[in-house]
């Protein structure tokens, strides 16, 4: 187990190195010049050249890459070209909103989806099942921003129950923090509810046809015990796989949700950085995201063995 863990962690470093090289080259070979954006629209070409020299953007690509890589190895992600703020500070500043949104979304999605999925599997082919699966198709097909605007219109503008946009740090009080995250969580979570519910239903249906379930039924085990204790645990591996993929997809999903609800998270940070070609921020965030992605996959793989002892052997 330990050697497996070490092996996986080593591969994480390799993956992040490759991601780093790829992102650096992709950014620097694509069109866009931060110096021109910094200088503003009325700036003369001479002024832009002066800024480019000052920022070291006219150095050969290899020199720029070497400089960046050396800093990253030392744990320094560099500083923003525009604001001169360290990238790590910017990421840390944006971490709380993104983590809050991601965690609430997963709690919301998993708790609703697993319940609905189990219910649909238990009542397979009945109107409840059709209704739930119809709802999941709708949830999966509606674009996030459409859901977001609809929820804003109903709950923030018409009913005035919840704020339209923004984020309040948890230190401002749990109430304001939670109220600002309700709509973004539902918006972002809906697609995951649909995805996880469908997977839970399919996996549960397979398990519910097993002999031992029939035996449990014959023995008179209650429906609740049979579903939650005997069936769900054995249907868990595919569900956890989907949740793991969902967490990774969430990283992309927060970009749109953070934009629609004006949440100052990492998604907004990277979108803004791309539009102004703030290379150190883009590189830093993608590097961190790739690390998180690989670690989530590792955690999912390790969790299989906890749920299904057969995998451990």
């Amino acid at each position, binding site marked *: 187990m330990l050697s497996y863990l070490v092996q996986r962690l080593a591969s994480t470093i390799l993956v992040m190195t490759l991601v780093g090289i790829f992102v650096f080259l992709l950014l620097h070979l694509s069109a866009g010049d931060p110096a021109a954006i910094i200088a503003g*629209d009325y700036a003369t070409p001479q002024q832009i050249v002066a800024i480019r020299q000052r920022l070291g953007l006219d150095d050969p690509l290899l020199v720029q890459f070497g400089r960046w890589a050396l800093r990253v190895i030392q744990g320094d992600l560099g500083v923003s070209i525009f604001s001169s*703020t360290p990238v790590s500070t910017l990421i840390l500043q944006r971490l709380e909103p993104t983590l809050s949104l991601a965690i609430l979304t997963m709690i919301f999605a998993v708790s609703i989806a697993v319940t609905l999925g189990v219910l649909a599997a238990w009542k397979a082919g009945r109107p409840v099942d059709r209704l739930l699966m119809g709802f999941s198709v709708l949830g999966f097909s509606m674009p996030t921003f459409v859901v977001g*605007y609809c929820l804003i219109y109903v709950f923030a503008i018409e009913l005035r129950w919840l704020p339209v946009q923004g984020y309040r740090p948890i230190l401002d009080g749990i109430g304001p923090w939670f109220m600002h995250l309700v709509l973004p969580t539902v918006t972002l979570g809906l697609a995951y509810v649909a995805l996880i519910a469908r997977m839970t239903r399919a996996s549960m249906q397979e398990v519910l046809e097993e002999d031992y379930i029939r035996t449990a039924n014959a023995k008179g085990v209650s429906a609740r015990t049979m579903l939650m204790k005997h069936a769900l645990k054995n249907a868990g591996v595919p569900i956890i796989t989907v949740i793991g993929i969902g967490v990774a997809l969430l990283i992309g999903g927060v970009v749109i949700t953070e934009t629609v609800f004006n949440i100052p998270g990492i998604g907004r940070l990277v979108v803004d950085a791309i*539009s102004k070609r703030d290379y150190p921020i883009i590189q830093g965030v993608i590097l961190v995201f790739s690390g998180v992605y690989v670690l989530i996959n590792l955690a999912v793989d390790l969790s299989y063995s906890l749920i299904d002892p057969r995998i451990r052997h």
Partner: protein
Amino acid sequence: MPAALPINEEENDMTTTRRRFVQGGLATGAIISAPATIRAQTTPSAARTIRAVLHGDLRVFDPIWTTANMTSYHSGMVYDMLFGVNDKYEPQPQMVSKWSLSDDRKTYTFELRDGLRFSDGTPVTARDCVASIRRWGARDGGGQHMMARLADTPVKDDKTFQIVMKEPYGLVVEWLAKAATNVCYIMREKEAGTDPNQQISTIIGSGPFTFNESAVVQGQRYVYDRNANYVPRSEPAVMTSGGKVVNVDRVVFENIADEATAIAAIRAGEIDMIEYPNVDLLDSLAGEKAIKLEVLNKQGQLGWARVNWLHPPFNNIKARQAMLHLIHPTEVMKATFGDEKYFRGCSSLFGMGTPMENDANIDWFKGAPNIEKAKQLVKESGYDGRPVVVLQATNIAYMNNAANLIAQWMRQAGFNVSLQASDWGAVVTRRAVKAAPDQGGWNVFFTSGSVNAFGNPVSLSGHAASGEKGWFGWPTNELHEQLRDKWAGAQTDAERKQIARDIQQNAWDFVPHAYFGQWFQPAALRNLTGLIGMPELIPFWNVKKG
């Protein structure tokens, strides 16, 4: 080993009484709300805070390092100016109490008014002003023009300094007062001594607000608190002149990237202002009594098509003249701004509504659009059918629409157009490339600027026709440059207006660029009164909330 603590039987009792439940609930509530309570003691109330969504993100904090308008908005809060302008664009003393010009018209003497202090409490001195003028003069178009004729800037005492010119120069005070970027804001000597090509790292000014860096979330929120050290002038506030009296405790620049969200936020009362609400969404504000739409910048923005003089076909005067005849400003403007009350065509090189606006040599405008005439001119230019590269910034609505429509009219006139889509970030890079269009260069790109900036023939870099030393497009015309110099040296307004006519007469013959419309986008204001409408700046002094 510490002595065992005595156990209170009541505390050890695990049962829940009603009293304990209530006590527990109150304690939990107090813990949850405590941080908010602590913060509330230092945060101004919502009634004394203005939350404004402006036209973009504040990316750079140094008004000399960039010409971006957002940076000028930020700087207008934090820094003050030696002179402001009134509603006739006439310079008026702001930080200066009195000033004089010597008989030989070469030496300007300025004295600072009493009570000027930076937000760190240190007094503003003449040395700060001279250092700030020199740093500004190294970067700004007008400033560079002035510095090239500057003899010296002696400091006479803490409150008095001079600007000594080598020759009589009529624009010193105008340059110091202008609101178009780069603006001559006064910084401490310490920051003003920074290399003009390097961004300053400390933001301390003597303006009506202080920059609250601890409350800033980069890319999201920028916070300005009332500067307790600021002493406003006694005259009423007019544009950037007069008393900058602050009636609120805090102003927050909110960067809401999504336009629909910003509209929803102002409807819900979460923000107080949107500088440029999306015109397609204005109807949704119609029923909101607390919200009014108001055009703040009455001069507006001017859209222009820059053509590349270095390569065919626009190295030929006939091809450039064809561009004047083929553009239909009303159609371009309609595509983006819809309602005709928000736009107009522009025939003057200096924009409509500026002091230098005139009607010299505008027959092309009276007859436009005239595709047949454009066709004839393209033919006369000897255009050989090579692809004409038109850069299209698809992420900015007016640029995207202008590119689509003008490319189509160019095709009708006989150009073989290659429309190349990208985001604005890629356009600003590519427009600097001087290579041939088929080797990464370009032929046409679209952008816009404040009409106020276009009104000045010298300070706007885009008005230069100095060839490859100039702004993108690199037009060349010797007479144009001579006339711009002459304009800068003129002593009276009447003289300047006549020279402006001469400049325009010549310019619409050689065609440095073409315009595709002038627009006046309204701001959405929720329960705000007293906001001074002006170009180049949103002044948050004089404003009242409620």
